């Protein structure tokens, strides 16, 4: 399958990155001391899950769900990165409370900068949209989806998107044992 349309029945209020475009590079701290660099995941798919706020009920459900589905994402060697405009300490408290096994990243300073580059910033309230991007192993956005802000989009669409990626690496592939940022050779 070569096209990955955004669901046409739901209007996309933003200019979310379209399938086929290169995901813009970003560097965001996952802890006060550790930086996550998007390009270091090259070679593996990445799921970018933008969400409006750590402690809102819908976001909590969504991130809790993705936390449970992580083993399925890992079957595709996919990394999951959550992003909101909350600060790193807020994220740490949220991740601890929800026992998250993936890093929620703070798009905090300049506030919403990464969301802007991905076209999912909400200037009227300063948050980001509830938006999903599946980025392939070459760093290209495959499907993207902007959910109605109060609706948890679930994980089914992400899994379907991962299945449709042309090369996600198999159990015997070089990618499968590669850690982000490490060499494949």
């Amino acid at each position: 399958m070569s096209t990955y349309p955004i669901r046409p029945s739901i209007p996309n209020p933003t200019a979310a990155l379209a399938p086929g475009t290169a995901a813009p590079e970003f560097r965001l701290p996952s802890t006060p001391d550790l930086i996550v660099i998007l390009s270091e995941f090259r070679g593996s798919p990445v799921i970018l899950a933008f969400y409006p706020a750590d402690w809102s009920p819908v976001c909590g459900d969504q991130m809790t769900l993705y936390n449970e589905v992580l083993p399925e994402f890992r079957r595709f060697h996919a990394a999951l990165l959550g992003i909101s405009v909350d600060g790193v300490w807020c994220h740490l408290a949220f991740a601890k409370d929800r026992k998250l096994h993936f890093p929620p990243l703070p798009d905090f300073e300049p506030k919403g900068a990464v969301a802007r580059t991905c076209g999912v910033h909400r200037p009227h309230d300063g948050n980001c949209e509830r938006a999903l991007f599946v980025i392939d192993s070459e760093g290209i956005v495959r499907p993207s989806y902007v959910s109605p802000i109060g609706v948890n989009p679930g994980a089914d669409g992400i899994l379907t998107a991962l299945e449709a990626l042309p090369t996600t690496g198999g159990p015997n592939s070089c990618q499968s044992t590669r850690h982000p940022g490490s060499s494949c050779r």
Partner: protein
Amino acid sequence: MSIHATSRLILPVSERDHIRGPATALVSLVEYGDYECPFCGAAYPVVEELQQVLGDRLRFVFRHFPLTQMHPHAQGAAEAAEAAGAQDMFWEMHATLYTHQHALDGAHLIRYAIALGLDPTSFRHALGGRSYEKRVREDFLSGVRSGVNGTPTFFIDGVRYDGPPDFDSLLAVLAEAAGETGG
């Protein structure tokens, strides 16, 4: 293809399921639930009442969707329900678990099994040997692929119900699906 799939039940109701109500029922209600989830606990008496009111017009199916990171006892409780099911007491254990959500650790699960008259040796063996871990995960994954996005999530005649999980709201939709007007 879209990243946002339609929210329909992808695993049809079959003999593998725990089912209450006849195959000829006018409407089916499938719940994906977690025994430690307080919202599922609140939905439990609602579903019980719906079954009483609708009788044979309703077919109810329960599938497991334990959010194990948030609810440390949810997986064990789900496996306990399955172990009870192996002794034809699934629904009895289901009721016990939802009415004792505050006490779902291993010792309490054994106590409930004994109180229900289950064979404690095989029950213990099933829990200790994780006999139903895979079965519970199958339920969970079928929910994920069907668009379950939290607990409880209901499907009415295979379509995800996104309305409020209260008695009046659910009854109105179930009655309409059953072809009854005026609920």
